[in-house]
């Protein structure tokens, strides 16, 4: 009985990993690829480690597998956030079917500045001119887009 459960966990974990790898090949741009790979791979590692823990049934192995699972669950979103942010700032092209990019109108790629729409409506047109350009753009541009 426990062997059957363990085999099912192993199979499900590797199938989720396979779905993640398939998504990373088939999907059209960086952000959709990350959406496939991060979630699929972390769920796959979780299921595989649950299968390993069921096979050994020792406290030491439980501690290690829980450590691996916890570590993967902690680090995968952080890593995905970091690489997605870096990819957007580097200027990858999004999929042509992307319907919403809320960062595009509020982000100035030359000065690497983000200004919120809320602030603009509250304080009116006076904040427009100093915010995006002038002396700031040259320095910021050479700093971040080298």
């Amino acid at each position, binding site marked *: 009985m426990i062997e059957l459960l363990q085999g099912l966990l192993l199979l499900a974990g590797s199938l989720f990993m396979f779905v993640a790898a398939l998504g*990373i090949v088939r999907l059209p741009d*960086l952000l959709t*690829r990350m959406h496939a790979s991060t979630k699929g791979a972390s769920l796959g590692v979780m299921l595989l480690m649950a299968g390993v823990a069921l096979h050994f049934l020792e406290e030491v192995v439980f501690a290690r597998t829980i450590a691996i699972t916890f570590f993967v669950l902690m680090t995968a979103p952080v*890593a995905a956030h970091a*690489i997605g942010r870096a990819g957007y700032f*580097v200027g990858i092209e999004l999929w042509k079917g992307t319907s919403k990019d809320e960062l595009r109108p509020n982000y100035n790629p030359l000065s690497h500045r983000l200004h919120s729409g809320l602030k603009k409506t509250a304080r009116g047109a006076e904040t427009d001119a100093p915010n995006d350009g002038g002396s700031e753009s040259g320095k910021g541009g050479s700093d971040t887009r080298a």
Partner: protein
Amino acid sequence: MQILTHLSFAILSVSMVLCFVRMVIGPSLPDRVVALELLSMIIVGIIGIHALQSDETSFLDVAIVVALMSFLATIGFARFLERGGRRDD
């Protein structure tokens, strides 16, 4: 049980091949970094199944170290991309 273990190995190996495909054809550097991260996740899974198959619990420590290294590598690549530097996609 043996059959299921071998089947999992086979599926994970096919996934590794797909990751390599993306690493080769990936149009930009962030795509390759994402493929590299997924590849190390798959390696963690393979190490887990190998520990199960060989009844050797100390392989799980290797899996922890591989997961740690992959996180550090991804963060390093992200910092490198964001701070700028010569890129040759």
